[in-house]
């Protein structure tokens, strides 16, 4: 039953030779075969590669060598990561015409070097312009806690694969919330690092100004382990930070003593369904936090991220919009076409607002170390749902599932989304963002781990999956 273990537990068992990496990989592949027809998380399963990589780990161990800190840990990646010899779909039909990738994405190379075993590529919203996990070409990723509900997006396959324990670890991307939204809807821990922290090289872009990559897992220890293995300067990423790795493995379990934690009020206390506000209140109560602060400029920050995304996304896809418009997911195409018509002045102003927002946040972080905010305005909607009620008004669901995540990634702040279960969320989880100052992933992970230790945040494997399979 290695399928239900965390990444950390698997690595320990493989390194101590209680189980072989091959057996772990075979167990995971069998679980994918059983559950993927229902949950639609994987678009590519790299079976032969996985078994070869697992055998290489076992061979190293047999020879007395250290296979790395993630020995034998199965993982998968959103299908916008380049996987050598696999076509990088980025959730699209159009990219199926591309040749297979010539090499792996940098983060895959780093996890493989640590002994992890790649099992394949994961479903996603087309070109990452999505918060639902729905996909017109591959079908929707389904929520393992209730397959009639969305997994969230755009890294929907990461949410579905993680909460069903097809893999203990996955990598996704987050431009405006695409790690944190599926983490919230599927009940996983998700880490969106500081903008520029992890290399994006050899992943398909969306909005270069805002794109981040990061891990999903069922434990904070797994986030910390994988994050440390992926850190490091990559000169090939123009926005990559020239910072030496700042490991968190020795930090994340240090507790919360001395940390000044506050709940984000104002914008982040409005527009949420009861379960979103209840989740934040539950976390705040557990941490004995009564302090509330207003994050200045949050609404205009979200507006700015929205406009930049429309415009940069459209610029990226302009030629495809001219020549392949019929091959887009209609929901994505119409937003991109509109984005091509956004005035340049709005975008320039939005970038100026980004700097002003950064400065305002740095001022706020002089008196606070951690901010708590909802991750999504509601728990997982049903697949196909098109609207939600925000502030008493019926709004389009697809762009508005990110109202709480967008301002935070706009500022490039590190966030751990922690899964919470509340009375009003019923059988579905909902996430809370634990937000730290730039480059302080360690602080966000410390709070997330503390909540996990208290039992306030948890990412159990979805129950009842066998009845669906």
């Amino acid at each position, binding site marked *: 039953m290695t399928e239900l273990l965390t990444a950390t537990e698997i690595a320990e068992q493989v390194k101590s030779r209680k189980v072989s990496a091959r057996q772990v990989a075979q167990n995971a592949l069998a679980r994918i075969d059983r559950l993927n027809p229902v949950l639609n998380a994987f678009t590519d399963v790299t079976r032969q590669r996985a078994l070869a990589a697992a055998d290489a780990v076992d061979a190293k161990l047999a020879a007395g060598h250290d296979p790395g800190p993630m020995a034998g840990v199965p993982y998968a990646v959103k299908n916008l990561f380049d996987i050598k010899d696999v076509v990088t779909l980025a959730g699209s039909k159009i990219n199926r015409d591309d040749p297979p990738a010539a090499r792996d994405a940098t983060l895959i190379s780093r996890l493989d070097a640590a002994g992890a075993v790649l099992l394949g590529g994961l479903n996603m919203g087309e070109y990452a312009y999505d918060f639902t996990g729905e996909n017109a070409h591959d079908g929707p990723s389904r929520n393992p806690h209730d397959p009639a509900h969305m997994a969230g997006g755009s890294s929907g396959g990461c949410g579905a694969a993680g909460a069903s324990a097809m893999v203990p670890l996955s990598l996704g991307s987050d431009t405006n919330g695409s790690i944190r939204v599926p983490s919230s809807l599927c009940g996983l821990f998700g880490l969106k690092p500081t903008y520029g922290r992890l290399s994006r090289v050899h992943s398909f872009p969306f909005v270069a100004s805002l794109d981040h990559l990061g891990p999903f897992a069922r434990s904070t220890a797994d986030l910390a382990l994988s994050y440390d293995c992926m850190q490091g300067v990559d000169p090939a990423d123009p926005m990559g930070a020239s910072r030496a790795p700042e490991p968190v493995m020795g930090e994340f379990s240090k507790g919360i003593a001395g940390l000044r934690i506050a709940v984000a009020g104002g914008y982040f206390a409005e527009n949420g369904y009861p379960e979103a506000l209840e989740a934040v209140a539950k976390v705040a109560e557990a941490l004995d936090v009564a302090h509330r602060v207003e994050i200045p400029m949050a609404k205009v920050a979200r*507006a700015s991220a929205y406009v930049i995304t429309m415009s940069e996304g459209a610029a990226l896809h302009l030629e495809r919009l001219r020549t392949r418009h019929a091959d887009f997911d209609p929901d994505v*195409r*119409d*937003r991109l076409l509109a984005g091509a*018509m*956004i005035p340049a002045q709005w975008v320039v*102003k939005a970038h100026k607002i980004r*700097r*002003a927002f950064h400065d305002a946040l740095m001022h706020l972080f002089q008196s606070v170390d951690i901010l708590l905010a909802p991750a999504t305005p509601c728990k997982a909607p049903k697949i196909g749902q098109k609207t939600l009620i925000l502030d008493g008004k019926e709004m389009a669901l697809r762009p508005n599932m990110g109202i709480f995540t967008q301002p935070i990634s706009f500022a490039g702040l590190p966030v751990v989304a922690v899964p919470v279960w509340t009375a009003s969320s019923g059988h579905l989880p909902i996430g809370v963002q634990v937000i730290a100052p730039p480059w302080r992933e360690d602080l966000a992970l410390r709070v997330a781990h503390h909540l996990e230790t208290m039992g306030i945040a948890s990412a159990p494997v979805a129950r009842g999956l066998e009845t669906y399979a």
Partner: protein
Amino acid sequence: MTKADTDALIDALSAYLELPVEEAYRPGVKFHLETARGIAEDILALDLGDHAEPAAVYIP
């Protein structure tokens, strides 16, 4: 901005950008343009002065 204005904008910019907007796409494009116009109100209303620098800066 009226609905007719949005239609005129789509007609003009699709021609200017050589970007086909088929009739089936038009309702969606209109919706997103009108939504963006509403969202942009906050951006346009914020006065940052003449010396504000954008965050996207090229570093040689």
